[in-house]
């Protein structure tokens, strides 16, 4: 297991290198740059100086090697368009917010999703199957830019229970987490239903029931472990999706997370900020995938022994 982990961790280095290289050159292909003429005329001298200050006047290959050299020293550079902090400072400031939001959303999605999925699988083609699954379908279909404002309207404006936007006291975190997690509730419910349905039809479950075990014990002790395997596989990409895909929710609810910073950096051609954010996300996704591999190995011995 340790060998497997070390091997996987070492494998991340070339992946990072490829990501840095591809993104570094790709973002420079987009028209415009961080320091170009704006809607109003800007003195060309000022733009030249700004480009020079951020090393953008150097040949592209030099910019690239300088950037990579900086990375070796842990230096992600200054943000070109949000210069009040360096890229590293921005990530330290804003990533925890996105991670926290993603965590709540995932917690919500798993709790409700598993509950709905397992309930549905226990009585297939009955009301307890159709009702949660129909809600799950709605969850997938309603985009978060619709759900967010609707929840805001109901809980903040009409009922006045929760703040409209912002990020601070726990109450501010409820609506964004629900909005972000809703679509994942649906996915998890469907995956859990499928997984459980399959497992419940297997021989060892029939054996357990034949031995006279209670239904709760059969489901929780024997079926659930295998039934949630598809959900566990999905959690890696889901966690990554929740963290990187929180831009819309962050914008609607005015949350100071990295998602909005990332998208703004792309629009502003803030090369250093964009690269820093991409690297951070890449690291996160790779780590999540690793964690999923470990979780699967723990849940299913066949994965552990490479069978």
């Amino acid at each position, binding site marked *: 297991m340790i060998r497997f982990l070390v091997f996987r961790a070492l494998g991340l280095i070339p992946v990072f290198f490829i990501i840095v290289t591809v993104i570094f050159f790709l973002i420079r292909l987009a028209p*415009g740059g961080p320091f170009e003429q*704006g809607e109003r005329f*800007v003195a060309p001298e000022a733009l030249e*100086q700004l480009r020079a200050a951020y090393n953008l006047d150097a040949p592209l290959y030099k910019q690239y090697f300088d950037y990579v050299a900086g990375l070796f020293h842990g230096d992600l550079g200054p943000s070109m368009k949000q210069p009040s902090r360096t890229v590293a400072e921005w990530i330290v400031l804003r990533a925890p917010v996105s991670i926290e939001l993603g965590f709540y959303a995932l917690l919500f999605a798993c709790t409700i999703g598993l509950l709905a999925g397992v309930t549905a699988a226990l009585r297939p083609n009955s009301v307890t199957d159709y009702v949660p699954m129909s809600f799950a379908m709605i969850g997938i279909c309603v985009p978060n830019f619709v759900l967010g404002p609707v929840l805001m309207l109901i809980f903040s404006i009409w009922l006045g229970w929760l703040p*409209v936007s912002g990020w601070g*006291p726990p109450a501010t975190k409820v609506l964004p987490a629900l909005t972000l997690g809703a679509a994942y509730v649906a996915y998890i419910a469907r995956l859990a239903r499928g997984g459980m349905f399959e497992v419940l039809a297997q021989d060892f479950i029939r054996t357990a029931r034949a031995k006279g075990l209670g239904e709760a014990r059969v489901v929780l002790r024997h079926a659930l472990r295998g039934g949630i395997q598809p959900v566990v596989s999905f959690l890696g990409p889901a966690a990554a999706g929740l963290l990187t895909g929180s831009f819309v929710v962050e914008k609607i609810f005015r949350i*100071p997370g990295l998602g909005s910073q990332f998208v703004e950096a792309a629009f502003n051609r803030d090369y250093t900020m964009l690269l820093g954010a991409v690297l951070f996300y890449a690291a996160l996704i790779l780590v999540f995938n690793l964690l999923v591999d470990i979780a699967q190995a723990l849940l299913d011995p066949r994965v552990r022994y490479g069978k």
Partner: protein
Amino acid sequence: MKLRTSLCIAMLAISAWTIGCSSGGGGAAGGAMLHVGAGAEPQNLDPYRVTGHNEHRVLTSLFEGLTTLNQETLAVEPGAAQSWTVSPDGLVYTFKLQPNAKWSDGTQVTAKDFVYGWKRHLSARLGSEYTYMLWCIKNAEEYTKGTLTDFSQVGVKAIDDTTLEVSLKYPVPAFLTMHIHYAWFPVLQSNVEAFGAIDDPNNTKWTRAGNMISNGPFKLEEWSPNQIIRVVRNEHYWDAANVKLDGVEFYPISDLATEEREFRSGRLDLTESLLSTKIETYRRDNPDLLHIDPLIGTYFYRLNTTRKPLDDPKVRRALAMSIDRQSICDSVLFSAVVPASAFTPPGLAGYTPESSIPYNVEEARKLLTEAGYPNGEGMRPLDILFNESEDHRRIAEAIQDMWKKNLNIEARPTQQEWKVYLNSLTTLDYDVARSAWIADYLDPINYLECFETGGGNNRTGWSSPEFDALVEKTRLSPEQSVRFPLLQQAEQLLLNEAPLAPIYSYRQRFLLAPRVRGLKSNMLGYLNYKTFSLADAQ
């Protein structure tokens, strides 16, 4: 039973937690704190490293230039300067600073602070995008461009601690009104240089809360990016006795729908703007909260004169004349703006354009026929370029329809992402492009000089030596009685040649809570927070 009891307790706990916490989330009532929507998150709070209106909204509370403006009449009033004199040729201004003007750390505001600030702003290495605002000062442009390295040659001098002398390159009648712009604010040398060099673009730590020293009515207490900027009363401010608010909380909310909901929930007293689609609802249900007031800004279409068939003034004028601006303002923009038939908005510093491009379809068709395109025949389709915005798209579609109906010309609305759009505009890679101009200061020349040959704001390829001469002549004349007729001639020439099609004059629209007193709307959208008070404050 046990389960039910546990559930009840859990639900009660959750309710208490959420309700308890929501009251801590803000709320416009309580204390004399004004809660203001600030638009997008400020890029910076260094007055020389920002370019946006959203930053202006915050910085005017923190810093003060030599003069301020009366919010209602826009008359010049003392700011950091107590009084001033102007030489008869309008070239030399001598400012006497307030004797009790202090920075927020209690040190005296001196003339040297202005000299230092402007020197820093003019340093090319700092890379300020608003440097050109200061180029009306003698030798300032040369200093930025590096042809002059000795700053003592630049026309700004501290005669003594409280006397500042500014020599201009040419007379600028609006000079005294310019100082509400952050480009002219002073900064404190010891504050800036405690964190880095005078001209280091990455020297930004001095702008953080706890570090920043400012000379305005308020000082920075908290800056949590994308959450809140809180400024509180600066007890050292020279006119602190007349500052009624305890502070201002700025909420950076870039999403207008969220901002409007925050206003409805009571967290905001003043919004930055309002979605055009919400105007009708407020007019109907809460007209007392809705404010729609004049703003010096023109929304127009640039016509690329370097491309056929737009190189023909007759075609350009025909296109401009066939736009029913009244209908756009009424149906597309819910009467929140007014039609513009000239480039300079009416009433700017007493100047109202006498010439115009009327809506006249018959005349437009005639011009098109004269240009060799009877009933639009032989005319290629034109692309209407605009950046991402629902309003821009709806306007472009309305104009597409008008050109088809009135002139039988095909147009294709083309949306581009902001930076791509700017790139297309700068490289003249467009046919027709959405544009806007909001004046930097109160002088009609600020509009017309946009279209000087080769000017950075021209971006249409249009050139007229006669127009250039009129603008230059205006620039050298100190008297408005001489300047305005020259500007009228220039505007007429511009509209005859029509490298642009004016569409509407801006209106600022915002929501204001009834408890706020002292906000007087003006054409500049300038807010002087020291005049604000709250009806329910203790």
